[in-house]
């Protein structure tokens, strides 16, 4: 492990977080009247705007506000909700944990479903199976999550096929089955694009791997086809897929906003939409910053793990 790399990568992660925090502060409070606009809508009177600015402490000097905001983020204090008066982090934290459970199940589905399908498609390249899987992945790749969610809800939660609950969340402590039963549909809906993407990624890296010399050697040596695929092929074909999964964490953090809204899932995405509807500024700030910081950390962790696995990788990517 290269310590210089570790230090540099940590510095970049921290700097990114710092800048994102500053930008969110800037966009929501610095732009003329924007904070008051968020709270009051775009057609507020000047007097009302002044009042809101005073309430939010926006009449204080900018550097004071900025230090206050950044200090708040560092200590996990985003202030209180303008609607309920509750500390924002108390609202965000339990919801973030639920959203992470949803994301974890979604990730798991794409690994369990997409990777084997990709391998099969690669192994049966240019056959009917491959064409079916590949064209299926095209549909998956082209369906926005709000469409797949709405359609799944329409077809799988109403009488002829009443297989899943319409939404909501049941904690894991109430049992694995009801927990998973509630998570499965939103996880699939959120995942169609990533599933298709991982499938294609797996297929193309497997196709490449299966054409390589050492696979040919293994086959010539008479290694059983199943072993060729799963022992030799999988190990080498999988690394790019892992990267794709890590990068898609960001996509997931975006699509939960939609999915949670549709499935009435009490996670952070639903909180953001509610906060936007209520123009609850501190909650909006936290709702955007917390998943973003989580995403930066996830990328950081993925990079570190990757370096541990492959010491040749250095910082200057591409």
């Amino acid at each position, binding site marked *: 492990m290269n310590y210089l790399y570790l230090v540099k990568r940590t510095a970049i992660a921290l700097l990114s977080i710092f800048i994102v925090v500053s930008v969110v502060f800037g966009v929501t409070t610095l*732009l003329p009247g924007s904070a008051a606009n*968020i709270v009051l809508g775009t057609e507020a009177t000047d007097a009302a705007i002044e009042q809101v600015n005073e309430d939010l402490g926006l009449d204080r000097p900018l550097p004071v506000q900025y230090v206050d905001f950044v200090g708040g983020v560092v200590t996990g204090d985003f202030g209180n909700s303008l609607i309920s008066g509750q500390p924002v982090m108390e609202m965000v934290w339990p919801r973030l944990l639920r959203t992470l459970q949803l994301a974890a199940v979604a990730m798991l589905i794409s690994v369990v479903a997409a990777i084997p399908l990709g391998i099969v498609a690669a192994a049966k390249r240019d056959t009917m199976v491959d064409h079916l899987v590949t064209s299926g992945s095209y549909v998956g790749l082209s369906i*926005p999550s709000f469409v797949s969610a709405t359609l799944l809800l329409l077809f799988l939660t109403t009488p002829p096929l009443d297989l899943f609950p319409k939404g909501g969340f049941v904690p894991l402590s109430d049992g694995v089955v009801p927990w998973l039963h509630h998570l499965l549909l939103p996880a699939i809906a959120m995942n169609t694009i990533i599933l298709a993407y991982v499938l294609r990624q797996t297929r193309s890296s497997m196709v490449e791997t299966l054409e390589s010399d050492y696979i040919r050697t293994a086959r010539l040596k008479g290694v059983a086809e199943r072993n060729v695929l799963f022992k030799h092929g999988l190990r080498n074909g999988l690394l790019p897929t892992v990267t794709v999964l890590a990068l898609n964490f960001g996509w997931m953090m975006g699509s939960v906003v*939609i999915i949670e809204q549709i499935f009435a899932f009490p996670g952070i995405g639903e909180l953001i939409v509610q906060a936007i509807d209520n123009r609850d500024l501190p909650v909006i700030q936290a709702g955007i910053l917390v998943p973003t910081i989580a995403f930066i950390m996830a990328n950081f962790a993925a990079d570190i793990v990757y370096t541990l696995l492959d010491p040749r990788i250095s910082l200057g990517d591409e």
Partner: protein
Amino acid sequence: MATDTSTSTESTGFDLPPIVGKVLSNRRIGLGLAILLPIALVAILGETVAPYDPTATHVADRYAGPGGQFLLGTDHLGRDLLSRVILGGRTSLLLGFGATALALLVGVPIGLTAGYAKGRVDELLMRIMDIIMSVPTLLLGLLILVVLPSNILNVVMAIGVVYAPRIARVTRSATLSVSEEEYVMAAKARGESSPYILFREILPNVTGPIVVEGSVRVGYAIMIGTSLSFLGLGAGPPNPDWGFMISTARDHIYQTPWFLIWPSVALLLTVMATNLIGDGLRDVLDPREVGDHS
């Protein structure tokens, strides 16, 4: 992927660059265009081909099924679904193509500059792009539209900002490999200005990857745009796009599923067509070939 490289090389009176033949004979591009062009044409013609005024309500015929007087049925206010899908398509396509155009306009110069200047400038510009990309796309779009009033221009701007860094990245890495070519060195030796070198010498030789990335982005831009409308932050009621239609349709799903199904199908087909075209272009204009044709 060596599919469909059998280009028709017979002379057609005037000389097209061979790349045009390759593009036109690619099966994916052909299929994609066959889906996208009719949709785009109908969306552009809009009111001219729509059988009804998309805002006219026919109260007696609410929730009508497909067939009959209204080809695709009607919605909860008795408005003709076909006409609304047609007009909604105009907004959705405008969002997708407009945002991609903006992303190209912003991203390409940044990528060219970073890749050509290298060193500190490159590092700085690409770090900024990385940081923008570290905000999940939909959240960044939301953040922008929370501050700015939701109208079609701001939605285009928000999505353009979201995707510009991706365009910049692709442009930069293509520029890196081209900027050491002899013709660039020669232009530098002639004392040409930097803008001249960037736009006249380098840009024409990195169009392949840029076109591929741009074509892929169109589909994503349409998805993000309709997602934002779905959340009520899109172009808004005067221009109801497919996302807005789908979000309204959810409330009437048990009276008429068609209200939901038609805009969903239109959206799915459009995004699929742009994905097919993007993939086909990637096959034809393989990024690895950049700089080989000068």
